[in-house]
């Protein structure tokens, strides 16, 4: 390659770079568009400004181990004290949670709703809309994994929240305790304490309590088993269950564990109940008080009550 004068190419009228190969081959000079070039210089200047304003370079040459930048953020520490620190995303989040307009409105609304009774919320369209919308988010993230998006639960695993039956009580205070502390439901397995016949008998009896058509002789025998072999201890002699133990009411037509609703004939229903009597139940609802705020739990209670209405 040789260097010569930049000349104007006679055919195109464009300038060449002055680079010449093999005596005649020249290269057109195609400079970057001005706007592009200046934008490029702009980014370089931006980098310098950014480097100085924001946390940038990890180095022991400055105190603290990195260049913290000139920009600062002031937020309130949990202690209530105002803290001013160099710009960083953690402080930015703390500040946003304290000053952002929408966030403050959210907090205020959560607080208001948490302090309002369910009846009042149901009568107030603003509040009930907020509970339904905001509660849906919390419910969807924390509850729906088990109780399903609509609160209908899964028979055999997780209770339905939108029917009238509540294992651990269905008024606001009960539901709040359930969410706050969690619940552990435990029914012992009876496969060793009861004979196969006894299990079938007691299953017939349990089905008869809900008005299912069963063998009346078995049901009669099952009543004896129910009352003498420990069932009535938790489910009470009349079979209505006890809120304090979370033992199910066996006299309604609602099934949370035995897959009776999907059973097609009487034998299948007896088998479904027998399986539960024989294997027992162990289920657990996690405690949420360490994960959700008090007010959020209250909103959730109101959401569930609105769902169930």
């Amino acid at each position, binding site marked *: 390659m040789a260097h010569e004068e930049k000349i104007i190419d006679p055919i195109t009228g464009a300038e060449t770079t002055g680079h010449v190969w093999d005596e005649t081959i020249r290269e057109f000079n195609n400079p970057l568009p001005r706007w592009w070039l200046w934008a490029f210089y702009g980014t370089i200047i931006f980098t310098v400004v950014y480097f100085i304003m924001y946390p940038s*370079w990890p180095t022991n040459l400055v105190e603290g181990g*990195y260049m913290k930048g000139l920009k600062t953020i002031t937020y309130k520490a949990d202690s209530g004290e105002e803290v001013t620190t160099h710009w960083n*995303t953690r402080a930015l989040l703390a500040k946003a949670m304290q000053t952002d307009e929408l966030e403050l409105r959210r907090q205020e609304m959560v607080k208001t709703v948490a302090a309002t009774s369910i009846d009042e919320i149901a009568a107030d369209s603003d509040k009930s809309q907020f509970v339904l919308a905001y509660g849906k988010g919390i419910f969807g993230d924390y509850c729906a994994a088990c109780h*399903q998006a609509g609160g209908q639960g899964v028979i055999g*695993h997780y209770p339905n929240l939108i029917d009238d039956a509540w294992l651990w009580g269905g008024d606001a205070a009960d539901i709040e305790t359930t969410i706050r502390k969690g619940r552990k439901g435990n029914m012992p397995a009876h496969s060793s304490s009861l004979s196969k016949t006894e299990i079938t008998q007691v299953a017939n009896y349990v089905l008869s309590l809900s008005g299912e058509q069963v063998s009346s002789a078995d049901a009669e025998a099952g009543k004896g088993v129910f009352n003498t072999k420990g069932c009535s201890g938790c489910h009470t002699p009349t079979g209505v269950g006890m809120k304090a133990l979370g033992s199910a009411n066996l006299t309604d037509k609602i099934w949370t564990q035995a897959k009776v609703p999907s059973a097609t004939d009487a034998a299948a229903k007896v088998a479904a109940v027998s399986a539960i009597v024989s294997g027992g139940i*162990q289920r657990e609802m996690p405690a949420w008080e360490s994960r959700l705020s008090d007010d959020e739990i209250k909103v959730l209670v109101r959401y569930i009550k609105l769902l169930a209405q």
Partner: protein
Amino acid sequence: MMKHESIETNAGLLIVLTLAAISIGGLVEIVPLFHIEGTVESVKNAEGKDSVRPYTALEQLGRDIYTREGCYNCHSQMIRPFRDEALRYGHYSLAAESQYDHPFQWGSKRTGPDLARVGGKYSSAWHVQHLNQPTSVVPESIMPNYPWLLETDLDYSDLQGKMKALKKVGVPYSLTKEEYAANTDQFGEDVAKLLDINRAETNMVEQAKKGNYDKNPAKLSEMDALVAYLQVLGTMVDFSKHDEAEFVQFR
């Protein structure tokens, strides 16, 4: 002055100068990181011990299954300090919380939700059912089934070897009496026992029995280990005991 042309026509020189030019960025950005202190938060509990501990033997084996199954392809373990993430997932992840992860499971993509604080969020029974067949509890889920976790016995033949390997890269599992004593100082007696490589197997079996994660006490399955791991994620730091300002100063 060296001419452009003489560099371009000298391949060796061109390579050397090119390498030097492209190394500058890396050197300036990466090398200082090896020399600074204070990127990892110091998080102490009420007893003045470290809140974040290395995984127990069972949890570590569960973590290995987590990586084996590629969970990180769809699930991140990194809650960023944004409002929406704070509202959905909880407190942002601390560097301290993944300091014993080798490699970390921060992930880069969320097809499923972030799992950094999934510990304690659902019951173990739920996890078992969900891993076995996700759609049985979340109908709209596109997560695949992992039915073999329940059926496969947990392979812990190389458990001590794994812990020793992790020890080599800085995870404070203990082999000697001195190391055990150091762990007692750092984490407290109860945790130090869990980090003792010599008792790894006993600890593992004990935790699996006590946790009964897969609801089948007769079998030590891969499910036991994975659920034990999932249930500890994000639970080591009790944020209600800390002032937010403590963590801000580390950034």
